[in-house]
């Protein structure tokens, strides 16, 4: 299949819709020979950010669309998440403090901290009233990938 190739999926701001996104991401990764570990890590990062958008982007509980564009390239996969919720640049999320000795860490912020480590790059732009958050995972795709897929 020629690269680059973009797949678009639109889901609602409902965590139940994440299963559909997971299935599409899995299909795209498998079709292009994405290494298993890279696909796993990108799936988790995508899950974290889209869950965050679903839960926190809108102050009221109405239904909203979240658009996700998955682009497979020869050198990796780029996933753009587009939503019209409140402005949020994950790159600016504060680093979590270490808990004081003997205390357990608080749960907040773990997802974004993990996301920063799971992908190679995070880009963000606010265009009009929409957030465009792009995750990039570098890996070899296409015919060359099938020979080295682990």
């Amino acid at each position, binding site marked *: 299949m020629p690269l680059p190739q973009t797949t678009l999926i639109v889901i609602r701001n409902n965590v139940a819709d994440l299963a559909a996104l997971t299935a599409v991401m899995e299909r795209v990764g498998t079709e292009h020979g994405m290494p298993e*570990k890279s696909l*796993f890590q990108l799936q988790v990062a995508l899950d974290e950010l889209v869950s965050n958008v679903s*839960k926190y982007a809108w102050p009221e509980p109405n239904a909203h669309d979240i658009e996700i564009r998955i682009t497979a390239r020869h050198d990796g996969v780029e996933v753009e998440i587009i939503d019209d919720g409140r402005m949020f640049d994950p790159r600016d999320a504060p680093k*979590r403090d*270490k808990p004081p000795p003997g205390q357990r*860490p608080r749960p907040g912020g*773990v997802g974004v901290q993990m996301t920063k480590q799971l992908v190679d790059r995070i880009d963000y732009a606010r265009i009009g009233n929409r957030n465009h958050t792009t995750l990039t995972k570098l890996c070899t795709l296409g015919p060359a990938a099938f020979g080295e897929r682990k």
Partner: protein
Amino acid sequence: MNKTALSMEDSRAGPACILSIGGRIDSGNAADLQDRLNKLILSGEKAILLDFKEVLYLTSAAFRVLLVATDEAERNASRIVLCGLVGQVRELFEMGGLLEAFTVHGSREDALARL
């Protein structure tokens, strides 16, 4: 194993209740794990071993549940310990800075010997 579902099965080894978890833990099903752990704690279990050996995928939703449940267990004079963290699932615990937040044993046998 169904990669998109969460499975939970409990069993007993002496005083310990073992909850074997499998599949996937994410924001869509983390509440089910939370409910199961709450029930075990409130039923009076004093030693709960969570075996992650069959977990294939998790997100920070799982960490939130584990942190809340571990605090709840302590308030009820109970304790939660983990085992079977391997591969990519273990790496996620490391990335989240959470390996030190829990009592983690290498295997079920190790954990039971110390409970």
